[in-house]
């Protein structure tokens, strides 16, 4: 999908990177016994924890502070409201999954902990994938109309700097 704005490009790049990582997590957790015994899973869990910790918070904050209000002003409050609700749900699941992913990265997760990680991580994957897809379809194309060149440059710079 082609986007005209820098902000859309930056967010789309992050979405794609997240989708790729989420796909790897989903695949790994499809065979939990193998994943639990796999030394490479610790590295994957560390990358997952970083994504949950950094990307979700920063990315969501930027959208909520800079983009959703502009969507609502442009008469797209329904979609902005839906995306905001999904952010809230994802944050809640992220808060549950983060300590488990960190423990998996450190190799200190026991059997019940691994099962809890699998359950929470798969829920996060489902919510996050559906959310990214909705943003790609509803939010990013809208930015072409919502942002002018100058605002687009300013926001893209602010996001990169932040």
């Amino acid at each position: 999908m082609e986007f005209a704005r820098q902000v859309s490009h930056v967010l789309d790049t992050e979405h794609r990177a997240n989708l790729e990582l989420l796909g790897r997590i989903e695949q790994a957790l499809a065979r939990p016994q193998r994943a639990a015994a796999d030394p490479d899973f610790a590295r994957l869990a560390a990358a997952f924890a970083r994504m949950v910790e950094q990307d979700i918070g920063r990315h969501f904050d930027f959208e909520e502070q800079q983009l959703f209000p502009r969507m609502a002003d442009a008469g797209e409050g329904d979609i902005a409201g839906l995306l905001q609700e999904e952010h809230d749900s994802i944050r809640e699941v992220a808060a549950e999954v983060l300590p488990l992913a960190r423990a998996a990265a450190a190799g200190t997760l026991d059997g019940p902990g691994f099962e809890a990680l699998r359950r929470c991580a798969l829920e996060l994957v489902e919510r996050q994938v559906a959310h990214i897809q909705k943003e790609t379809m509803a939010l990013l194309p809208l930015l072409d109309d919502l942002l002018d060149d100058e605002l687009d440059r300013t926001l893209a710079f602010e996001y990169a700097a932040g």
Partner: protein
Amino acid sequence: MKLAAGAFLGGAKSRLLPASVPFRFFGAAVVFHLLAWIAALRAAADWPGFAGGLGWPLAALHLVTLGVLAMTAIGASLQLLPVATRQPIRRVRGPALVWWLYAPGVAALALGMGTGAPALLAVGGGGVGAGLLLYAGLLAANLLGARGMPGIVAHGWAALAALVVVLVTAASLVATYLGMPLLDRRAALALHVAFAGYGFMGLLALGLAYLLVPMFALAPAPDARLQLVSWGSAVIALCCAGAAALGVLPVALRVVAIGAGAIATGLHLALMRRALCAGMRKDLGVSFALVRTGWTGLVVSLLAALGVALDAPVPGLPLLFGLLLVGVWLLSFVLGILQRILPFLASMHAAVGKHRPPTPSSFTRRRPLVLHFACHLSALAAMALAIVTASPLLAELAAAAGTIGALAYAAFFATLVRRLAAPVRPSALPAKA
């Protein structure tokens, strides 16, 4: 460029009918699906030689067409069209009344057909007719207030016009059994089959696909101009088929109708393929395997229709055509779409007032759906073989497989309703639909 599914999803939550309204239609469809295969099992010995007339084969056929296909189409269109065309939900009692007229009507009609009781047939037909007329009024009101989505709206209007033909011819066919024929039976039957299968149900299926397939695949909305070209070809096809049924150049116009239908189908499938290729969600699971089976059935049904029109020497060809049109195209498509709509709608309803709503996959059980898929395909293949070889045993095996599949589908639905009714753990394990 804003994509249609984004707008659809954004407005969906605020335009939901109470869960009990669409789910009663979908629940009835699941029950009638099971009853249809049981009736088919009861009729196994009669299938190979079936050429119309009262009996369990006719009952099984109408349990599928009215009980499953139209029932699902009514529930889906009453819920989805207001969302797609950005209208508030104005009426709740109307859709509920449609169900109360229509569902018992279908049961009585099927029983009347199966047992050969014209009085019951007339009573059931009256309920079905009244329910469908009320539904037609609700659909017309939705279409009149529609904003945007011209392709889907055009399909809706054409389906509505086809429904009028279906109702008139159905009344005539029922009246024939009561000794008061209104139209020539052969003409009425030809009109009834074409306008019910390709007209009312076919056009609703094609129109709703423009909304639902991109939504589930998360793809851009298909080109509206091409949707309208496909719709125009389908309407020409129906007009030609109608004229042929009334005796105007019957063979030539049937061939033209099939050609126009092939153009409509080709364009539609090209748009669907484009949407699926561009969609961000690639793995659409068992549900879209059924949808693809349905699309294959649509194409092959046109070939079979051509064979019937040209009187091709294939054993059981008219019956095979019916199986391809109703069983392979419409039933596969509807059951595939229904198993996607149900968890989606359930999650939307469950989300109301909840901080962390359950995910669609938390309402889904994969195993029954996989079992249903295997049984559905086996049943259709065995039934086709039974028709070609005139084998009651194969027909019995086909119906038995269909019954097992319908039970599995019912288990999927029962789980979904139980989870919707109970407080759902948001962290329930996801599973692919």
